[in-house]
């Protein structure tokens, strides 16, 4: 009963907050509206100023937008099969989705983060985490393709991820759901004290390759979000927790009982040294690591069997808990690295911890007991300030380059701008509706770029023409260069963008690859010119080495395939010209099409079910003769003795 009254109180409060804010939108017309239009207008043929990478949420992908126009430029498949280009279906890429649970065709992507050097985003790669079957992917910002996916063992709900440290030393993964560590069959209601919350630190090599360095065996709380320290606090990582109650059921109520949960401050440098000096113990694990090898254009998938477990209690000074009110969600670190913001999502206040005060408190041992042997710092000792009654339901905070912070409030549906150091609210703008994350280019770095901010909203309702019950999520672009935030643009997004990352276009656009070089194509089944095309039978498997060039396939007539065969079409695009992909689709394929970029080889399988003469064709309108870019496959009945024969322009080869 008490809970119910609490909820009524919360919503009453929400009503107060929202009623304060309902006056802005209608007011912007005339001159104001036209200036907003000018600010987002990118003339035809001109380029946007920023690339923005929005997580696709339950699409499993990453979408690329231009800012300020809000134009979608690309959808990059990451954790989900993508029939549009064959990702996750083709022989080359299907193993990218391999996990210790087998092939998982779908993922839930959350928090993209761009690689950094000296605390500034450098545009080499972008990382993104998968929440459902814990994984982290690395995407190249030269090819805009997923190059690597590593599974996170012993984790469940990889939510506090995939944030990178200041020099991309590590990308981190946490576990949102505490679980038995290692997994075992046990009664759920014995969770308390028995489940754990391992935090995983994945080392990133100079070539971008990821390798799990260690796993910190943490108490069984829910590790929600995280951010790295920077500047003075470089070497630390901060994770918010909720459900320190360790409840296992009806968590919306039972995980909301403690007045304070924790922000875990992890001195990863210390742990890293400890591990380097032989600390930690290996434990069994099963996880799959998939790397797309550009040379052979094929995924190399490795299953690994152990991970290094570190007990933080064995390393003095490695981990501390900072009490933080009201189930904090976002855990954000300001550009200087001094302030750690806990966004207590069931509160109207924001708690700001001070890194230097934290160090002092550690030195003076201002502890308030411990949690499972990990020291809990005194709340007042680390507190830098509180942003009072800024809104309701704070989730995430980002920063500009002028000492301001911007926090999203889900319940009161607004973005609130406040000042670091004085903690005073200086502006608020409504979001449409119920904003989750927000993003400022470089907002998670030493050098944010305080020009634009986008709010990524969870509820769309009436913002666009209605499209039935299911709607795309919505984003809003604000100009934050002035004292007040100015809403410029509303644009629909794809899937459910959680976090996003943006970078100045100039930093990466020159690196964007135009073609893959045919002379670097070492695919096992490539045919790099038409004379290398052929059909090879191995039992009931038939390998077709095929090429495409405007505007024909070679071969385009194939005979000698039988019902019961499994046909591998290895299609090489011979073009070496920018933006001339060819597609390959064959009737009745139970897979997908292929979309092959110049110089690439991709493979799709086809298992013909019926005798006949079946067509295949190019799916990408490649040229004036695109419609003619087609061919026939003769399929004979099982056991028929039609010989293999293939050719182009009535010049056949057979065997």
């Amino acid at each position, binding site marked *: 009963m008490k809970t119910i009254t609490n909820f009524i109180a919360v919503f009453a409060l929400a009503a107060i907050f929202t009623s304060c804010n309902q006056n802005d939108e209608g007011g912007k017309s005339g001159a104001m509206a036209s200036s907003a239009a000018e600010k987002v207008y990118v003339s035809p043929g001109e380029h946007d100023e920023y690339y923005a990478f929005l997580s696709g949420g339950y699409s499993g992908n990453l979408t690329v937008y231009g800012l300020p126009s809000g134009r979608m430029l690309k959808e990059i498949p990451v954790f989900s099969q993508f029939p549009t280009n064959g990702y996750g279906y083709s022989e080359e890429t299907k193993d990218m989705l391999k996990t210790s649970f087998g092939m998982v065709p779908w993922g839930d992507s959350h928090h993209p983060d761009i690689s950094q050097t000296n605390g500034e985003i450098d545009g080499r790669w972008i990382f993104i985490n998968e929440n459902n079957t814990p994984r982290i992917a690395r995407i190249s910002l030269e090819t805009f393709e997923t190059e690597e996916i590593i599974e996170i063992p012993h984790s469940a709900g990889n939510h506090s991820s995939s944030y990178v440290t200041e020099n991309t030393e590590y990308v981190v993964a946490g576990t949102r759901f505490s679980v038995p560590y290692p997994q075992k069959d046990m009664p759920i209601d014995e969770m308390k004290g028995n489940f754990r919350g391992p935090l995983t630190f994945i080392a990133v090599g100079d070539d971008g390759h990821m390798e799990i360095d260690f796993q910190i065996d943490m108490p069984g709380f829910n590790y929600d979000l995280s951010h790295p320290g920077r500047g003075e606090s470089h070497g630390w990582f901060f994770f918010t927790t909720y459900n320190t109650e360790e409840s296992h059921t009806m968590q919306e109520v039972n995980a909301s009982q403690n007045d304070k949960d924790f922000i875990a401050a992890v001195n990863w440098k210390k742990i890293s040294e400890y591990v380097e000096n032989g600390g930690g113990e290996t434990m069994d694990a099963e996880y799959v690591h998939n790397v797309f090898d550009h040379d052979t254009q094929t995924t190399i998938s490795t299953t690994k069997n152990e991970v290094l477990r570190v007990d933080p209690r064995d390393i003095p000074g490695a981990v501390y808990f900072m009490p933080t009110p009201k189930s904090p969600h976002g855990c954000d670190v300001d550009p200087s690295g001094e302030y750690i913001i806990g966004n207590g999502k069931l509160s109207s206040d924001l708690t700001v911890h001070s890194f230097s005060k934290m160090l002092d408190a550690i030195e003076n041992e201002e502890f308030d007991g411990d949690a499972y042997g990990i020291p809990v710092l005194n709340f007042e000792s680390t507190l830098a300030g509180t942003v009072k009654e800024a809104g309701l339901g704070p989730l995430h905070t980002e920063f500009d380059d002028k000492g301001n912070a911007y926090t999203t409030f889900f319940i009161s549906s607004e973005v609130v701008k406040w000042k670091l150091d004085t903690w005073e609210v200086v502006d608020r703008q409504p979001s449409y509706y119920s904003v989750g994350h927000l993003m400022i280019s470089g907002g998670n770095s030493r050098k944010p770029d305080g020009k634009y901010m986008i709010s990524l909203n969870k509820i769309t309702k009436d913002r666009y023409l209605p499209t039935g019950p299911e709607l795309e999520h919505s984003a809003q672009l604000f100009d934050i260069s002035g004292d007040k935030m100015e809403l410029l643009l509303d644009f629909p997004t794809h899937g459910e963008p959680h976090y996003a990352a943006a970078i100045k276009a100039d930093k990466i656009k020159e690196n964007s690859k135009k*073609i893959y070089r045919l002379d670097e194509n070492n695919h096992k089944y490539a045919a790099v010119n038409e004379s290398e095309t052929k059909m090879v039978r191995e039992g009931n498997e038939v390998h077709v080495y095929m090429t495409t*060039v*405007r505007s024909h396939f070679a071969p385009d007539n194939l005979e000698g395939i039988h019902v019961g065969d499994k046909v591998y079409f290895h299609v090489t695009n011979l*073009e*070496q*010209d*920018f933006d001339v992909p060819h597609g390959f689709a064959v009737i009745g394929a139970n897979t997908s099409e292929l979309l092959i970029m110049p110089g690439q080889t991709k493979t799709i399988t086809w298992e013909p079910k019926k005798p006949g003469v079946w067509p295949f064709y190019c799916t990408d309108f490649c*040229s*004036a*003769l695109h419609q003619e870019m087609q061919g026939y496959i003769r399929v004979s009945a099982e056991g028929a003795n039609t010989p293999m024969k293939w050719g182009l322009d009535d010049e056949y080869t057979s065997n």
Partner: protein
Amino acid sequence: MKRSAILMILGSLLLLGLFYFPLWNIQLGAPQYPDPMGMDIFISGIEGEEEFDIQNIDGVNHYIGMKKIPKPAEMWEFQVFPIVIAGMAILGVLLGALGFFKKISASWFLGWFILMLVLGLLGMYDFNNWLLDYGTDLDPKAIIKLTDSEGNPINYKPPLFGTQKILNFTAHSYPRTGAYLMFIGMSLTLVAWWIRKKALKTLK
């Protein structure tokens, strides 16, 4: 006296620039090719401005049945031109050297210039013939066959000099560094002749 000889040598040596720099360049731009494809014509062969330009020009040209851009071995010009240029450079240097040490008449310098001019014009004539052949000798099985208002097949010859629209493409054909060096070099030899002539006159 010595000045004219040095100019003669310098002018002749500038021909050697043709071994390093393209003589001519043809660019093809189209709506689909905002970055035009281009070929650099050297005395010893044709190269793409960008690595794959030749392949891509051949690719689009196959629709109208044009022959492929010739490889160096497929045209005698690419064997002969370097010999002619090297020969003329050596001859020029030789004349210059003779002029430096001996009293040879200025007409030798003029003679060299005229010979070079004739050879150059012959080269241009030959180049134009090749362009004409390239633009008109089309595969009878060409995918796209277009005719002009009188029913004659369209001539796809790129211009020898200047800019011209050919179907969706705009062709730009202009000299490049090698040619400019040659022009400068030839002018220098002409200046050498003129100076020498005046100097010899005053000597008399």
